[in-house]
């Protein structure tokens, strides 16, 4: 049996998938097909672990973890049949940079909807450098699919032969055919925007400046305003850190009260929180609670 590729695919694309295919036979692998034609049996993802909890019993635990990349969140489930991954997840304390290799899963509950998840094979704590490397890999992969699909959408009908003539290898061509058949022609601009955003995520010139990195800002007034905004954000960040005594995050009410005392009104606070969320400095582990990353 040839080993399945470990796809580097962004959560934003993976979670859009609602189609799975299987080879038919009893032991043949199954795949989740994304709208861009990634035909995924195995994934390799690196992101920020924001949340891990046992959603079953102590005797037969089922660990659910959330892993965030610049485009969205993966849901990782490990139970008794993934002993190594379960043991690793049980020990992890978010936030952490984590690499997960695992199998793709598509779940369609009776209540409707389709949800993708990952059944992990290995879980490992890594560093920011690897996370950035992974984002670059995932960008390359997404770019390749976007380019292939732009060509494929010009064909009517899309055929393997024509794709092969463009140098697209048979495994990728199969994924594209399956995607076009199921999803039709999707709006590619959504994914090109996702790609551009992910690439920018890697570049400091597109990040909100940190205080110590400032210096070349041409306009002193705006620089001062930025610095003031930055200072207020730091205040809020500090409050969230202090209030998060039990590791579950700071409650919204607590933050509002403390911020009020520090002279930040509710509207300004909301703006600051949104900015911090955007910068990825905090996240919302459960509704109404904020936590530092």
């Amino acid at each position, binding site marked *: *049996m*040839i*080993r*399945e*590729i*470990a*796809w*580097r695919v962004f959560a934003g694309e993976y979670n859009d998938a609602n189609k799975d295919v299987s080879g038919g036979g009893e032991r043949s692998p199954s795949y989740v097909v994304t709208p861009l034609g990634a035909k995924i049996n195995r994934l*390799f993802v*690196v992101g920020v672990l924001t949340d891990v909890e046992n959603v079953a019993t102590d005797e037969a635990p089922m660990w659910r973890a959330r892993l965030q990349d610049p485009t969205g969140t993966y849901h990782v489930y490990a139970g008794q049949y993934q002993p190594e991954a379960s043991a690793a997840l049980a020990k992890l304390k978010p936030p952490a940079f984590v*690499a997960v*290799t695992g199998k793709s899963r598509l779940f369609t509950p009776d209540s409707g909807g389709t949800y993708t998840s990952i059944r992990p*094979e*290995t879980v*490992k704590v*890594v560093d920011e*450098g*690897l996370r*950035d*490397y992974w*984002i*670059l*890999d995932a*960008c*390359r*992969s997404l*770019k390749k699919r976007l380019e292939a699909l732009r060509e494929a959408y010009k064909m009517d009908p899309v055929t393997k032969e024509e794709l092969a003539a463009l140098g697209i*290898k048979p*495994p990728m061509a199969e994924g594209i055919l399956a995607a076009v058949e199921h999803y039709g022609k999707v709006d590619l601009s959504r994914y*090109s925007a996702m*790609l*551009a955003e992910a*690439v*920018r995520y*890697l*570049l*400091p010139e597109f990040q909100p400046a940190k205080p110590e990195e400032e210096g070349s800002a041409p306009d002193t007034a705006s620089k001062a305003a930025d610095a003031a905004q930055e200072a207020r954000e730091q205040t809020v960040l500090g409050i969230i850190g202090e209030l998060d005594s039990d590791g579950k995050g700071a409650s919204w009410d607590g933050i509002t009260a403390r911020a009020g005392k520090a002279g930040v009104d509710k509207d300004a606070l909301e703006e600051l929180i949104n900015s911090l969320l955007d910068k990825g400095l905090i996240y919302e582990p459960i509704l109404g609670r904020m936590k530092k990353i």
Partner: protein
Amino acid sequence: MRDEIAPHVEDITRALGGKVSELEIEKELSNYVNVYRVSLDTAKRSIVKKHGGNPAHLSLGIAKTIRELVPGENSVNLLARIVSVNEKTIDSENGARTILYGILGDATATVPFTAWEPLPFEPARGDVVRVANAYTKEYRGQVQVNLGVRSVVTREAPDALPPAPVGTGGPSPAAARATPVKIVELREGSSNIAFTARVLGVERREVDVDGGKKAVFSGVIADETAKSQFSAWKDFELRDGDVLRVEGAYVKSWRGIPQVSFDERALVKKLDDGALPPMDELGRSPRMWIEDLSERGGGVDVTVRGILIDLKEGSGLVYRCPECKRVLRKGVCRIHGEVTGTPDLRVKAVLDDGSGALTAVFGKDLTEGLLDKTVEECIAQAKEAMSQEVIRDDLADLLVAQPVEARGNVTSDDYGLMMIVDQAKILKVDVREEARAMLEELEGPA
């Protein structure tokens, strides 16, 4: 003309069970062949069909030389020499079966063949065979001979076919039509190809072939695209560094890696040194994507960049049988039973570059380097922990999810690709620089 056509007229009549007269068939056949210029093979089949017969009942093929073969012929007769022959097990609807594949040659050219049914004798390199009712197909742009249920293969005396012409008289007619390829495009089973490459190294070996020893000149050649092993079955006086133009070579594979062979049928010319980049440049290991390697079946001295996704069973401290070097399981060798093993260190890891995956095997020296520990230190550590697994755990901590650049030979079998790693290094990539380049590509220069 009439004499040539007569046996085929008889063949058609027989296939139709004698319900149409020979005279009528002769008229029809001559009409097809001479007026409509249809090939004899097609003509025969059409006539049989037209009269309600089954073309499969035709038994007389059309004798051809290999050079004359075109794709889509249904009953071809050949007198050829087996240039190479190999066995392969394939999965079919009725379970696993063994087929033969290799290369046939005559004085005009060589052609790949596949025998889907067992032959009545054990075929060997050098055998002269008479093939009746073979069919041809096109595979990757090349004619291929297929031997199926209707085909009859018999072994002939070695002198039934004149020995291949000695390459003094210039190119054989076939070489004139050789297909030009780059080294990276070499595919198992291709024949009559032409390429330009530099000899990176060559040495003379003696090999046993039927009827004695033969000298073969083998080594590594390269062009700008890739390296390949080669075997020259004639002394073309090749020297290290020579730039060659070879026309009329063929491709066999060794453990999945395509490698080029040529013999006295080929035209070999030495070119100016400037025709290709210098030795040190061509000697570099080309970087390749795993999907391209799996399409080719492997590669010589290639470089792959990817992530070590998983550590496989049998990585770490292992003990090998002193007799056969197999890894022991619980102190027992599969062949030699209970033995005192010799310790060794190795890593078998899955290296995945997003386009494909291969098994990367790191030997003792590389593994010692990665761990920064000797085998002896590992043995001591395992004793203390009372488990060999500690070494594996150390390796997993170090290597899993690690981007690496690995260089070595890649072979393939039914389980996929395998690289015997020569050199490896932890990959440091300037992510920002590459991201900027990608952004520029997406949005145009800033």
